[in-house]
């Protein structure tokens, strides 16, 4: 074996799933070697990039249930954000305002248009779950982000705290996985979640008073509770589906890790906050930023790591989308 062949084999081993490499590794290397000029000593950068892209494609092929997992995660995320948008909208409408609360404009806070935009996206998902839903989510993201910018620019304008808006934005991005026509009863699930949150919010909201620190007390309880519910519900769903060899629930749970972490931002930030006793309801800004970065990094890394781990594991079987041409009955040894 030449050095060049060994190097191609090493790159193939690094990028491709184990099963695929066993079946196709030497064939791939043979083709690269046939294309290489006689004076080549090591694989070119373009070849390494091609191996990386090809390996990624194969990892995605064998990640059974990944596509349906995105759809399931999208649906659960949409149901969660629908419940929150409804709950917070009622909260703003029902909770009484403190006498000193400096209300300006038609809304108590800039949260109202943001929650309305998210609820519009939930309704659009029922009637037009394709392109229009994508546009509706885009609009809701813009209105939500716009509320932060506007509140920063105009004195006296209030907005929900970032630890409330950030999970909503992340849930919205994950909800894009729910794009596409599904049975009508599936499309109604987010709307049902919104309806279910109405009595809870309506009965809870009168206990709170709008002031400079509005949202904080309610969010500190509601967001972690939703995180735990989503985590346990997602895990049970994943286990139930996995028992039937349907792995979309596992992928959905992995995808939902980021929004779940964002929902628990307050609790995670408090764990990182070392300001000691007597600290405020909301942890220090730096702790919240550190917690959100941690959640984002762990969430974003978990997917590629899981896909790579799936590729490293020897499946033993040759059925499904990961099968290779050499394993089919069509082979005629000549």
């Amino acid at each position, binding site marked *: 074996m030449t050095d060049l062949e060994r190097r191609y084999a090493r790159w193939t081993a690094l990028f491709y799933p184990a099963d695929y490499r066993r079946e196709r590794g030497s064939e791939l290397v*043979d083709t690269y070697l046939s294309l290489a000029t006689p004076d080549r000593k090591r694989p070119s950068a373009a070849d390494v990039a091609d191996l990386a892209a090809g390996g990624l494609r194969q990892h995605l*092929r064998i990640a059974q249930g990944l596509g349906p997992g995105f759809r399931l995660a999208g649906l659960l995320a949409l149901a969660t954000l629908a419940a929150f948008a409804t709950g917070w909208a009622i909260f703003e409408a029902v909770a009484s305002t403190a006498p000193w609360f400096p209300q300006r404009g038609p809304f108590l806070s800039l949260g109202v248009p943001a929650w309305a935009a998210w609820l519009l996206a939930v309704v659009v998902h029922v009637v037009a779950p394709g392109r229009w839903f994508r546009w509706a989510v885009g609009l809701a993201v813009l209105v939500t982000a716009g509320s932060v910018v506007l509140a920063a620019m105009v004195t006296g304008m209030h907005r929900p705290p970032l630890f409330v808006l950030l999970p909503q934005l992340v849930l919205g991005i994950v909800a894009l996985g729910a794009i596409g026509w599904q049975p009508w009863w599936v499309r109604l699930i987010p709307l049902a979640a919104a309806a279910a949150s109405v009595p809870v919010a309506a009965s809870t909201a009168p206990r709170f008073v709008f002031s400079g620190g509005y949202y904080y007390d309610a969010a500190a309880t509601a967001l972690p509770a939703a995180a735990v519910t989503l985590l346990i519900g997602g895990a049970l769903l994943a286990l139930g589906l996995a028992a039937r060899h349907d792995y979309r629930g596992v992928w959905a749970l992995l995808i939902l890790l980021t929004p779940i972490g964002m929902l628990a931002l307050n609790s995670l930030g408090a764990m990182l906050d070392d300001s000691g006793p007597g600290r405020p309801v909301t942890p220090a800004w730096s702790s919240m930023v550190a917690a959100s970065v941690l959640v984002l990094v762990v969430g974003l890394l978990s997917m590629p790591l899981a896909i790579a781990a799936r590729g490293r594991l020897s499946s033993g079987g040759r059925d499904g989308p990961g099968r290779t041409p050499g394993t089919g009955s069509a082979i005629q040894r000549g």
Partner: protein
Amino acid sequence: METPLREPTFLILTALAGEPLHGYGLIAEVDRLSGGHISLRPGTLYGALDRLVDAGLVRVDHEEIVEGRRRRYYQLTEPGGEVLATETERMRRNVDAATARLRAIQAAPRLSGGVA
């Protein structure tokens, strides 16, 4: 397999419409057929071949061991030939339509334009 086929996929099927070819032979044949415009890389080629085999349009004809490395030869299947024929006919209609329009433009007298 979704149609219309992408150009590399169409050229791979065209290349395999002749004798069975292995990876390197297939890359060289696609390069020749496209006049040097499409240079497939192995990672891309085998990704496309996997999809074509899964769709039943291509199959492994035979394999041999060369210098300790496996070399598979691929061949067009009957359904693959039908897809290629359908796609070729569709493209032929497009080419005929475009050719007729271009001839009409060339034959028509210029009504305006040019420097006075």
